[in-house]
């Protein structure tokens, strides 16, 4: 059974750098329309062992990358509070664009990336409605070196998206 772990922004920030969540004063975001979560695989005992959190450790490894990354996380957090998140991203410094698309069961599935102009840091996610709720499934943080989305990133994101779309109501949501 595929598992989604609900994650708060403070947890992501704290993993990126100890003490970083304190920069925001610990406020709780206003009501989420889209719940932010990340996949846990069988071997993941804690969310810190998840692919997403490992990707933060591996790719967001200096202050300059961190500076961009936190802005992407911050944008995702606020976008999660509005229905039309594409409208939210219009005109702000963080851009939300399709990084990879594919057809599954006759439907076009889109994996999105968040990025800042001229910066190489990316945050990959895809939106999913299941179990009467809506989710932003955050898949990877990445420091991109090429113009196109790397094959391994696209493959991983596609496999995860298919897994959760197919699972539908069988997805297990972990608090």
């Amino acid at each position: 059974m595929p598992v989604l772990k609900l994650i708060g922004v403070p947890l992501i920030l704290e993993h990126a750098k100890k003490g970083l969540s304190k920069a925001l004063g610990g406020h709780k975001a206003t009501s989420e329309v889209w719940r932010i979560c990340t996949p846990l695989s069988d071997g993941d005992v804690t969310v810190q062992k998840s692919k997403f959190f490992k990707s933060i450790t591996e790719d967001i490894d200096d202050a300059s990358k961190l500076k961009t990354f936190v802005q992407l996380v911050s944008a995702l957090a606020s976008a999660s509070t509005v229905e039309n998140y594409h409208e939210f991203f219009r005109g702000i410094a963080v851009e939300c664009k399709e990084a990879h698309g594919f057809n599954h069961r006759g439907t076009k599935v889109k994996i999105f990336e968040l990025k800042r102009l001229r910066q190489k840091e990316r945050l990959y996610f895809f939106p999913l409605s299941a179990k009467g709720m809506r989710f932003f499934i955050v898949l990877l943080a990445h420091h991109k070196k090429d113009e196109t989305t790397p094959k391994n990133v696209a493959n991983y994101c596609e496999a995860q998206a298919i897994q959760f779309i197919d699972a539908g109501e069988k997805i297990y949501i972990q608090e």
Partner: protein
Amino acid sequence: MSPKNREVQVSIQDNREVFSALRRSDIAYQLKARMLSKGLRSVDIAERLGVSEANVSRWFSGSQNLSLDTMYAIADALEERLCVLLRAKDEASTLIQLEDEILHRDWERQKGKGSLPNLSNLSEYQFVADNPAANDGFISEFKLERTA
């Protein structure tokens, strides 16, 4: 300089750039999200404040260091309250824990009464519990922290 002051100074210097980037974007994006949630557009904020739409777009870009006057003005245009609180660093997280505990207790109580047949876990309950409050009260709580 006292060792304590020196320690705080180093910490602030180390974190300055990242904290600044995070705080600027966090506040601007919360304001924009609230605007959209209320069905308003940048042009509405511009008209209510008597400024250009381009100005409002710049405020919401997430890159600007918004002044207090600007933040309060946007809150006025949104017809919301902006709160700035000063809290000890540990207090904020304690409050979040408390909120979570209260929610959990409430969920257990409702479940015990059998009044939530359609909700299977705390997560779903939290989602339902959160949404009615979407239009209430505060624009957000921007907390200035003091070191203990």
